[in-house]
């Protein structure tokens, strides 16, 4: 992979991650359906995770898992810390999503609709 293309990836990966977050936020803020809002939030989470993982990537690196061939070359490893953080973040995001979806079900029980315009207090 040559240098100029690689520098394009800088914009590509980070740009995609940010665009993903923006799309998710747009969905969460504009859309009327409760479920759509939750979907938007999960898209935001995806974008954020991509951003964090991309932050830890080094060109030509390999996963931070030692096998006999890599024992002598720890400098070839990509940064393991963002990966560890993302693991935690993904799990936490799942927990929040599950709770949000449970609330969506409960709100549907009460109102018979998912439209936030018809749900009194959720209007912004």
């Amino acid at each position, binding site marked *: *992979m*040559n240098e100029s*293309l*690689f520098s*394009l*990836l800088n914009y*590509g*990966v980070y740009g*995609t991650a940010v*665009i*993903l977050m923006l*799309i*998710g936020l*747009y*969905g969460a803020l504009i*859309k*009327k*359906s409760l*479920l*759509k809002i*939750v*979907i*938007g939030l*999960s*898209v935001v989470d*995806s*974008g954020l*995770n*991509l951003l964090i*993982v*991309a932050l*830890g*990537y080094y060109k030509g*690196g*390999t*996963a931070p*898992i030692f096998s006999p061939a890599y024992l002598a070359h720890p400098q070839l490893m*990509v940064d393991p810390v963002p*990966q560890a953080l*993302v*693991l935690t973040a*993904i*799990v936490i995001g*799942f927990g929040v*999503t*599950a709770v949000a*979806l449970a609330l*969506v*079900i409960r709100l*549907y029980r009460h109102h018979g*609709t*998912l*439209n936030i*315009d*018809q749900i009194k207090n959720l209007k912004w």
Partner: protein
Amino acid sequence: MIYFILIAVLLVLIIAAAIYAVRQKDLLYATLATGIISLILSVLYFLLQAPDVALTEAAIGVALTTIIFVITVRNTVRMEDESDKKEKIKSAVK
């Protein structure tokens, strides 16, 4: 070079799936689109040398989140409600 093309394709696909997920009126399809985002994201993590994260994303995004979303769709409504605009106009007229 090929990595570049692959990453670029995956990135474009992710954005397409995300836009689809947010714009689609049918909530089931939107849910499936989030599943696809996770699927592609998982391959992308793989390319970014993060197999642990790829595993987790595959596990959470593809199976668990999808099922919980699908069950929520089952328990609520399948289509996004479109009626609010008309009602607004009605209430404005009144």
